[in-house]
C-alpha cells in the first residue's frame, strides 16, 4: 500500500487536541503506551480530516465528523486499555466477562453463543480429554453433563463449585491458566440464557476463548482428577512422541499359481504410497490445523517403512488411535471378505479336482481292461487257435482296441495333467488359507 502524502500540519485543530486529551486521560495504561495510542489516533483523525477537507467539507465540520466517527470516547478508551495490556494480550480485555457482551455491541465481536464455530471445531477435543484409554466416566457421573446452571447470575467460581459437587473426582482449577482469558473466581459467566446444561456452558466458553485468544478454556480429565485450565498449556504438558505400527494395513499377495509360490508370503507390507495416504488422512481428520506441515505448531509426523512416528499432544494421539482403529477395522473387514472369496474358490477347485480324479481312475481302468483284451486276442492268434474268419475278426477287434487305447492314453494324459495342476492349486490354496487364518 502506498504511503500517504499531503498531510496538513496540525494547526488550528484544538478540537482534536482536546478530544485526545480527554481520551488519553481515560486510558488505564502506562504513559509510554498512552503516548503511542494518542499518536496513532491523532494520525487517524488528521488523516480523516484531510480526506474530508479534500471532499469539500469545512474544517470545523470535518474535525467534528472525524471525532464523531471514532465513537463514544469512554468506550473507546476502555477497549483500547483492555487490548493494550502488556503482559498477556487480553488479560484485562476479558477480565470481566460482561466485557464480551459490551465488546459484542461495540466491536461487533462474534462471540455470542449463536455464532457458528470456525472450521476448527474445538468442541470435540476441548471438553473431554482423556490421557488414558480408560473410560473416564459414565454419563451419570459426567460432571459437565449432570446439571444445569443459571449462567446469567453465576460466576466462574460458582460454576466450578457446582461441577465439583457433581464430579466423581477432585477438581483442580488452574486459575493462572484461566487468567490468560481474564477469568477469575468472581468473574460473571454472563451468558444471556435460561439455565442451561453445564456442558453447553463449558462449550460456549471454550468457543468464546478460542475465537478471541486462539486458545481455549479446557477440561483435562484424568482417572483421578479433572483439571480446568487452557488448551495450549495442557497440550504442551501432554505432548509426547508415539510410534504407530501400520503393518496391519498389509496387502494380500497375488494369487498363487504354481508350486513354487508355496514359499511366497501371503501378505506384502503396506506400500509407501499406502502409508503416505494414511498419514495424509490422519492430518486431515485429526486437529488438522495443528500439524506443522499445515502451518500449525503442535504436531509433527514422519514415516519409516511401515511405522508412523507422531509427536503431538495426548488428545491428538487419542484421536489418531481411534482413527487408526476404525481404519484397521475397515481394512480387516475387506480382508475377511477376500478370505471368504478365497475359501469359495478353494471349494470350487476341490470339486473340480475330485471330478478329474474320478475321470482319471475310470479311464485308467478302461485302458487296463482293453489292453488285457488285446493281449488275449494276440495270444489266441499266436497259438493258431483261431480259424480264418475268426482270425480276421480278432485282428479287426485288435485294431479297434489299439485305436481306442491310443485315444484313451491321450485322454488319460490330459486328465493326469489336469489332476496334477488342480492338485497343486489345491495345495497352494489350502496353504494360503491356513496362513491367512494364522495371521
Amino acid at each position, binding site marked *: 500500500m502506498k504511503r500517504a502524502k499531503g498531510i496538513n*500540519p496540525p494547526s488550528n485543530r484544538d478540537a482534536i487536541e482536546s478530544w485526545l486529551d480527554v481520551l488519553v486521560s481515560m486510558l488505564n495504561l502506562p504513559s509510554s503506551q498512552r503516548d503511542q495510542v494518542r499518536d496513532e489516533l491523532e494520525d487517524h483523525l488528521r488523516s480523516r480530516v484531510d480526506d474530508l477537507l479534500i471532499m469539500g467539507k469545512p474544517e470545523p465540520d470535518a474535525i467534528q465528523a472525524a471525532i464523531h466517527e471514532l465513537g463514544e470516547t469512554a468506550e473507546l478508551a476502555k*477497549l483500547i486499555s483492555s*487490548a493494550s495490556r502488556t503482559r498477556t494480550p487480553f488479560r484485562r*480485555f476479558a477480565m470481566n466477562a460482561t466485557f464480551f457482551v459490551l465488546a459484542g455491541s*461495540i466491536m461487533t465481536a462474534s462471540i455470542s453463543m449463536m455464532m457458528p464455530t470456525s472450521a476448527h471445531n474445538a468442541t470435540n477435543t476441548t471438553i473431554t480429554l482423556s490421557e488414558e484409554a480408560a473410560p473416564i466416566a459414565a454419563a451419570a457421573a459426567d460432571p459437565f453433563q449432570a446439571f444445569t446452571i443459571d449462567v446469567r447470575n453465576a460466576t466462574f467460581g460458582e460454576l466450578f463449585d457446582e461441577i465439583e459437587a457433581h464430579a466423581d473426582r477432585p477438581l483442580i482449577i488452574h486459575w493462572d491458566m484461566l487468567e490468560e482469558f481474564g477469568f477469575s473466581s468472581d468473574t460473571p459467566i454472563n451468558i444471556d440464557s435460561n439455565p442451561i446444561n453445564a456442558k453447553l456452558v463449558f462449550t460456549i466458553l471454550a468457543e468464546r476463548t478460542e*475465537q478471541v485468544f486462539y486458545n481455549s478454556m479446557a477440561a483435562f480429565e484424568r482417572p483421578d482428577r479433572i483439571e480446568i485450565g487452557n488448551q495450549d498449556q495442557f497440550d504442551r504438558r501432554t505432548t509426547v512422541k508415539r510410534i504407530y505400527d501400520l503393518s496391519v494395513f498389509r496387502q494380500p499377495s497375488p494369487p498363487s499359481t504354481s508350486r513354487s509360490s508355496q514359499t511366497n508370503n501371503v501378505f506384502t507390507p503396506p506400500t509407501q504410497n499406502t502409508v503416505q495416504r494414511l498419514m495424509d488422512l490422519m492430518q486431515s481428520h485429526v486437529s488438522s490445523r495443528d500439524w506443522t506441515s499445515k502451518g500449525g505448531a503442535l504436531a509433527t509426523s514422519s514415516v519409516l517403512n511401515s511405522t508412523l512416528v507422531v509427536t503431538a499432544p495426548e488428545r491428538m494421539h487419542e484421536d489418531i488411535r481411534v482413527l487408526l482403529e476404525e481404519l484397521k477395522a475397515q481394512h480387516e473387514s475387506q480382508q475377511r471378505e477376500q478370505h471368504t472369496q478365497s475359501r469359495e474358490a478353494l471349494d470350487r477347485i476341490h470339486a473340480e479336482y475330485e471330478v478329474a480324479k474320478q475321470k482319471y481312475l475310470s479311464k485308467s481302468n478302461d485302458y487296463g481292461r482293453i489292453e488285457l483284451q488285446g493281449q488275449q486276442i494276440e495270444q489266441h492268434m499266436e497259438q493258431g487257435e483261431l480259424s480264418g474268419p475268426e482270425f480276421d475278426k480278432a485282428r479287426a477287434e485288435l485294431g479297434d482296441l489299439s485305436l481306442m487305447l491310443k485315444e484313451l492314453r491321450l485322454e488319460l494324459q490330459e486328465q493326469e495333467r489336469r489332476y496334477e495342476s488342480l492338485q497343486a492349486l489345491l495345495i497352494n490354496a489350502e496353504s494360503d488359507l491356513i496362513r491367512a487364518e494364522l495371521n
Partner: protein
Amino acid sequence: MLNLKQDHSTLVVLSVLADGPSYGYAITKAIAAKSDGHFKLTASGMYPLLTKLEKQGLVTTSWEEVKAEGADPDASGRKRKWYTLSPKGRKQLDRHIEAHKQMQHLLDNFLAPTNTTPSTNA
C-alpha cells in the same frame, strides 16, 4: 453497511495487510474500498483488534514520522504506526481462508439447485 464480526474482522484486516504494510486509517479505507462500502470496521473495533494481532505476533509494527508537503523540514511531524503481516500472520490468514472456503463449500451444497423432482412415467 455491514458491521464486521470479529472473526471476519481478523480475516479482513489480515488480508488487507497481505497486500502490504498499512496503518489504521488506511486499513479502514481499504476495507471500505474493497467491499464497495459494504463493510465497516469502526475505530473502536479496529484498534483493539490490531493490538490483539500485534500481541499474538500476527503483525509487526513500526513508526514513521510523516510531514505535510512543504512543511518546515525542522518541524516535527506526526507519528504514524505501520502494521506489517508477519509469517505467523500469513499462516493464520491462510487458515482463515481455508476455513472460509470450507464453509462456503458446505453452504454451496445447500444452496445448489438439486434435481429431486421424481420422474413421472406417463
